[in-house]
């Protein structure tokens, strides 16, 4: 099989561009996730690949097969793309049994009966649903429906596996199990996969690479480690890992980096080079688990200490989440120790502060 190449994909609804000049490549056998908030264009991109949505411009091709090309006026109907799409709602046909659902794509392809029977068995056993072949969709739990939906797309060995938030309708525990099992299945079958989700944990756990989307554009494309450790913008830092964002004015701090001056005149050392551009507005992202909390009695000695006030504390079992006000910014902090009183000192280690210059 070959790589899926999406070039300059654009989908406009009147003046609004739901997808704006998006390009990416999914290598043969790779698991790529489109991650972003709702309305970022990830589902439109997926549906364009499947052929259910007709883009305004661009090109989608896999190997020699051109799915869509605005220049050549090519738009292959969905049934001729040989993709497999699993919907969020699973979309099992309610008037067909599990077996009939899985068999349907084979009957469309006129696969001989004996061969079809074997393939249905194979697909159902992949998802461990062979005992449910005679059941009706409404007799299955959500997790079972999801597995049948997957079997139905795997049975005809599609060129591409497309998944539209397939885990979001499952409860938390089941989602975790389904995740491991999906990853295992994908790596076993080496299927080229495009996965759409708004759940950063899912994206990090499953993907070979992640494309973070916002406002119809890909804002960062990289491995899960890249995305998490080296976000390229405050948006990515916030979306993947729920970072806190502090913004203020940057001033030169002698030879070593710069100082971020917050609205209440408190200062933070930031390890970055000053820049010559007109704007000196700087945003700093830092993850909740990287901030340490101290009371005055602890006499902390770190260099980046800010005064703050706890306005809310939520006991979450393994840890405590504190909401702390620093000037006019609200920060989320994960702590393990109980802190009484509201006046606290926050330590924001320099190496954990991720700076992003703001353009006017």
């Amino acid at each position, binding site marked *: *099989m070959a790589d899926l190449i999406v070039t300059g994909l654009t989908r406009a609804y009147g003046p609004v561009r739901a997808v704006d000049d998006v390009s990416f490549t999914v290598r043969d056998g790779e698991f790529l996730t489109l991650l972003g908030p709702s309305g970022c264009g990830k589902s439109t991109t997926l549906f364009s690949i*499947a*052929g*259910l949505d007709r883009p305004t411009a661009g090109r989608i091709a896999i190997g020699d097969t051109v799915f869509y090309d605005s220049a050549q006026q090519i738009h292959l*109907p*969905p*049934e*001729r*793309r*040989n*993709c*497999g*799409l699993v*919907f*969020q*709602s699973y*979309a099992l*046909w*309610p*008037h067909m049994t599990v077996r009939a659902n899985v068999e*349907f*794509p084979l009957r*469309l*392809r*006129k*696969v001989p009966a004996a061969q079809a029977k074997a393939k249905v068995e194979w697909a159902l056993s992949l998802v461990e649903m062979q005992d449910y072949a005679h059941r009706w969709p409404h007799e299955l739990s959500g997790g079972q429906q999801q597995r049948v*939906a997957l079997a*139905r*797309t795997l049975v*005809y*060995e599609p*060129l591409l596996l*497309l998944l539209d938030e397939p885990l979001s309708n499952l409860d938390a525990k089941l989602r975790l199990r389904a995740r491991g099992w999906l990853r295992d299945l994908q790596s076993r*079958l080496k299927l080229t996969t495009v996965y759409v989700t708004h759940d950063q944990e899912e994206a990090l756990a499953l993907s070979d690479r992640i494309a973070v989307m916002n406002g119809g554009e890909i804002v960062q494309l990289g491995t899960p480690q890249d995305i998490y450790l080296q976000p390229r913008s405050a948006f990515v830092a916030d979306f993947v890992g729920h970072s806190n964002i502090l913004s203020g004015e940057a001033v030169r701090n002698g030879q070593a980096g710069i100082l971020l001056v917050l609205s209440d005149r408190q200062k933070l050392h930031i390890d970055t080079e000053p820049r010559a551009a007109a704007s000196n507005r700087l945003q700093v992202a830092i993850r909740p688990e990287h901030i340490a909390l101290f009371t005055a009695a602890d006499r902390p000695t770190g260099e980046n200490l800010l005064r703050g006030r706890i306005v809310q504390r939520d006991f979450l079992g393994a840890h405590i989440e504190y909401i702390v006000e620093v000037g006019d910014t609200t920060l989320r902090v994960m702590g393990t120790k109980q802190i009484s009183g509201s006046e606290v000192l926050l330590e924001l280690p320099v190496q954990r502060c991720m700076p992003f210059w703001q353009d006017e």
Partner: protein
Amino acid sequence: MNSATTPERMLASAAGSAQRDAAATVQSGVAVIITLLVIAPLLMILYQSLQTAALYETGRSWTLGNYAKLFTQAEFFGAVKNSLALAVVSTSVAMVIGVLSAIALSRIAMPMRNWLESAMLAPIYVSQLVLAFGWYVLYGPSGYITLALKRWLGGVPWDLASITGMGVLGGMAMAPYIMLNCMSSLALTDASLEDAARSTGASPWRVLRSITIPLLRPAIVYLVLLSFVGGLEMLSIPLIFGWPAGLEFFTTYLLREGLGKTVPDYGMLGAAAFILVVLVASFVLLQRKVIGAAQRYVTVRGKAQRPKLLDLGPWRWLPPLALALYVLFTSILPLAGLGLRAVVRFLTPLVSPWDYLTLDHFRALFQQEIFGRALLNSVIVSGVGAALTTVLVALAAVMIHRSEHRFGRHLELLVLLPRAVPGMVVGIGFLWVTLWTPGLSLLHGTIWILIIAYTMRGLPTAYASITPTVLQIGRELDQSARVSGADWWTTCWKIVLPIAKTALGASYLLLFLSFFKEYAAAVYLTGAGGEVVGTQLLHMWAKGDAGPVAALSVVQLAFTLVLAWMIRRMGKEQKTWLT
């Protein structure tokens, strides 16, 4: 995996292109058939109205003279005026009865609520013609109750041969439709809106006045227009009560001009028919404007949160009693009277009916070859017509809502257009289509032209009953079929239509029922050998055979009640299937 995929894909592609052509053929076929069905009779009426002589004659020419002649005719204006007056009275009556009973049944706690609701709705399933016969037998100038009251009290407070009297009857005939629509609209309004008003301190009556009724306002405006159109195109009541009294209405005028004369003036008939279409269509357009696109499909569905029912305390028996009396006097007694009329020689308060019991009317009916033929023809026309219409509209609905066909939206307008064409005008239109089109004269007077005309009449009904289900079927269900390799046609055939099959069955029965009781469209189209029950009823009524008319009405009623029972059962099944 690689080796398996390629040949399969090629196979799928090859089959795909052939099937895509099939899909395109089906789509174009459906579009062409519907266009011809809807447009041809209307064009023919317009064409005839602009011709100097009948369409089957030679040496015709274009003219506006027919319209000029019509507008100088006093009786035409009289008929139009009477029709408008009838529409105004019947609309007022229908609205008062329909809205009040809907509010009572949906918001007031009362015993036997379900039973009363079914009884109030029952006339929907009965032919308006049969209902009118029933009323005539009891309340007509020589009706049983009229005569009895005259004997005891010296007179009756009503005159059903007046426009007001007919308007009241017309209103009662249309009230169940108003009630049904109001009730579904009440069921769809969020009950928490009323609860919120209660919790802010409003009394139940205040809630009714300030929340419930104002929320019903859009529905009421829409229904006023609906019943006004119904009043304009009403045929049964003007024919049975107005004709003997010499009152002429738009519809009876069309009937007399076309069938009552030895040499009908087809040009003028065409002009009059076309004016009626324009009149009705303008009200239907107004109605569409009022209601907007989204609320076109009024569906009855049960809501989980039912509004709290108002308890009237010591007065709780009053609304159910009023409803029960209404049902008794407007449906049960008239239909029972009609049934009685069918088995007695005379029906008058002067003599006991038991002394004149007879089965002669039925015997006379069954001895006539024409009766058996009419019944058989009715069953064939309804059975075949309902099947054709259901298939045609199912394909059209899927095309309109589940394809990117460029004529989809236009097709929807066409499918709904027959709503604006009164039944008799449909008949006139198709009569002229068969007369004018070479080769089609073979259809003239046969049941096949009836099937065609009924199919056209049934399009909006079928569309309204199939569309909500098609819209309820999640888009992912057909999208996933498309992605897994099915083309549009296969997706319709294997996924969408099978899931909608209960709705298709319900639509079939509904159409069967309405075709079985249809008479207005058949008046102009039946010929010897092609009689149906509806036209046979009218024919016998015109001859003055009240007994056999009652007997035939009873036969038709029995048929329709069985069908109605089946429809209600399917309705319940469908609800469980979709939830």
